[in-house]
């Protein structure tokens, strides 16, 4: 399990207005692994993964100090191109958010905004991504139908396929299964397991079993601080911090 670090934060602090949401986060994520962030609600774990693709930029009054390195560059450097960054880092949201467009167009959206317009290329990409997201068999006859007609689990897999279509290096997942039923959840979890072959996955979850099941590394956050970070096995079986142990054993949170 020794591989390169793809993204890392150094002395990261983040404020929403006057309220500090992240405090002195130092964390490194390894290539082609699954990293889970756990912690009680409001601990800052969603805020943290939104730091990685600069989605906090669109929130008014958000201020950041410290550095975030991706491929060796500080992504908060003024010369950094946000669009390029985001096309290298895909994101899956808490609630499935397909566009109210046909299934095909949902997946073709990313390639299109990056300048791919050839129908043939798009068809190939759509097929490839739907297959990767294990959705192809369910929808291949219905590519022209609106994505809003799919079930929640299908929608979420569609969103994953949509993110894959821009060929990202990292995929961020913000509680991707919190609105899904157990069956749909397990399908997504299987998918995450497969995705790690080619991508680096960072997943926020408040379901500890899920973290234990899918991740290689786990970070435990509490009140905006990263309390403990390490290999999942170690965190769950032998936590170093008392706070982590108490959370994992269910004594609070």
């Amino acid at each position: 399990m020794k591989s390169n670090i793809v993204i890392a934060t150094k002395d990261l602090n983040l404020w929403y207005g006057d309220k500090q949401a992240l405090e002195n986060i130092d964390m490194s994520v390894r290539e082609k692994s699954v990293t889970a962030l756990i912690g009680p609600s409001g601990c800052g774990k969603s805020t943290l993964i939104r730091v990685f693709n600069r989605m906090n930029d669109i929130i008014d009054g958000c201020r950041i100090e410290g550095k975030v390195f991706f491929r060796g560059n500080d992504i908060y450097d003024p010369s950094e191109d946000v669009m390029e960054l985001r096309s290298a880092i895909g994101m899956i949201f808490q609630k499935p958010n397909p566009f109210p467009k046909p299934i095909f167009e949902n997946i073709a959206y990313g390639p299109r905004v990056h300048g791919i317009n050839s129908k043939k290329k798009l068809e190939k990409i759509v097929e490839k991504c739907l297959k990767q997201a294990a959705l192809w068999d369910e929808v291949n006859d219905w590519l022209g139908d609106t994505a809003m007609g799919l079930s929640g689990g299908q929608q979420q897999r569609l969103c994953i396929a949509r993110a894959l279509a821009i060929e990202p290096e990292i995929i961020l997942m913000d509680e991707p299964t919190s609105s899904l039923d157990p069956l749909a959840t397990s399908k997504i979890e299987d998918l995450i397991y497969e995705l790690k072959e080619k991508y680096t996955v960072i997943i926020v979850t408040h379901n500890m079993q899920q973290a234990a099941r899918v991740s290689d590394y786990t970070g435990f956050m509490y009140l905006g601080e990263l309390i403990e970070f390490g290999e999942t096995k170690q965190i769950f079986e032998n936590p170093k911090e008392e706070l982590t142990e108490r959370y994992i054993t269910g004594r609070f949170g």
Partner: protein
Amino acid sequence: MSFLAPSKLSRKKRGEGTLTEWVIEKLLFISAIFSVLVVFFILVFLFGKGYQIFEEVTLWEFLTGDKWDPVGQNIEEKPYYGAHPLIMGTLLVTLGAMAFAIPLGIGSAIFISEIAPPRIRDFLKTGTELLAGIPSVVYGLFGLIILTRWLQINFDKPTGETWLAGSILLGIMALPTIISVAEDAISSVGKELKEGSLALGATKWQTITKVIIPSSISGITAAVILGMGRAVGETMAVMMVTGNTPIVPEPITNVFASVKTLTGALGIEMGEAPVNSPHQHALFALAVVLFVIVLSINAGAMIIMKRIKERHYGIAGKKKGSRVLPEPIKNFTDSIKNFTGPIKRHMDTILGIFAGIILIWLLTSWFGIPMGLVIFFMVIGIHFFSQSLSPKNYQTMALGMVTLSIIIVLFLLGALLYYITAEGIHALSWEFLTESPRNCGREGGIYPAIIGTLYLTLGAIILAVPLGVGAGIYISEYAKETRVLKIIRAGIDNLNGTPSIVFGLFGYAFLVLYLGLGVSMIAGQITLALMVLPTIIRTTEEALKAVPHTLREGSLALGATKWETTRRVVLPPSMPGIITGIILSIGRAAGETAPIMFTAVVFSQPGLPNDPSDPVMALPYYILEMSMNIPGGQGNAAGAALVLLLLVLSFYLLAALIRKRFEKALKGFR
């Protein structure tokens, strides 16, 4: 305490409770169906008066005849009732207004909802709403004195009173409607869709054009349609600037031709046409035509929006194998698909070529053939140049255009406010506000007109609020998606699109003449109440719908009845929306001229009306008469216009304040 004992909480006896519920539901239903009745009555009364013209001419002659000379001022002294030039006038002016207002309006809406920092957002929203608060008479004066002169000088034409002037003025008047409705639609697109697009590396502009606008297209369409309805029905302003020449422009693209619109003909000629003369019948028939145009715009809008919704949110039932067609029919539809397939695929190209041809035609007819072609190729050049830009540079350019559109809108607002203030400020004084007019209004004040306007608007609101809020509650809380609801909705939509002059004619024909109320305050109040009713219904419905469903379920689960739930749980958080709607209605009612012109107002009367059967003075009508029919009355007309504007604006400001306070109070709640 035992759980089995009859609960002390059930204060009421069962039967009593359900009876109250039943009565309330029926009352609400009646207020909802009221709009349908009004639309029906309007049609019946206009038609009842209008159809008599067909004793003089045939329907075909009426609609297609190209000479409008209802008093027969020609050698043979034979009247002509050809409405074709007037219908064309209305259509052309409206079309021009839309060409002007749609890009500006949607551009501004995008700027306000997606680009402006939150601090400026409120300012811009209030600013554009102020445009809606300016009374149409004031628009008319501005158009006549500033706009037409500007056009005349800048385009070196004999006169500026043209189709173009009408279109620009109506465009400005339609802007607030388009901006606010489109802005609502755009801001209501979920944050998650925006984030989904941005997270894929799309630029802000790509997100706006490819996700946000398509997702809010039905709301934007509604905005355009509502704006169009406002433009089609506007009377006072348009009749002051279009020149009122009842001929079809020659050639038809000549925007510098003078035209006469349907509303212009109604507003100008109604007072002079002898009662029950063929001329008056012809005017009522024009009103029917106008009404039919508005109805078809609304119907068209509904069909378009339904289509769009279906395309976006496709019906879930349409899934696999749910629609099994018999084999021959399937073959047939397949063969149609094969045939139309290529057309569909090349739709963009076909539309592009079509648009190009129209553009060439318009440009060459406006600027002559060589100049027109040069401009055309410049446009094409810019188009292809912008295609070659990187998404980022394209975004910069596009955002520049959007910013420009809001700047234009603000400039127009500023020009209007400056004009009214500069003209009217000299007349303002304490005496002007508190005294009666003397010397035909050239001296003294406008106190009775101010009070008359307050009486009229408050009376209208008192009549309209119970009906409007009741109807809103019924539609949002009680109605099921049935045919009846569809009819009610259609009734409200049509009432909303009904031109104010049509309300005026209906009030005149039904209230003043048929019911024998005479020209009286009550007739004016009822007419205005009907006019603002749809606004109140809509805002109430919207406000109620915004209350989360879980709240209702929470209350119902505690055993509260439907009405109790509505009254105690649903209504309180939606009060800001409802009150905003009511106050905006007050503003609208205060500034309108056409509905009260034939129903309620007099030029002068001693003192104030004693009871509702007395006529009243009112500011908008007073301004019209002072500026148009009293030599030397312009100074005080401008003063009265300023007072009316301040009055209306203070209502709007009140609405904005209330909305703000409520929003703060409810912040944690939503």
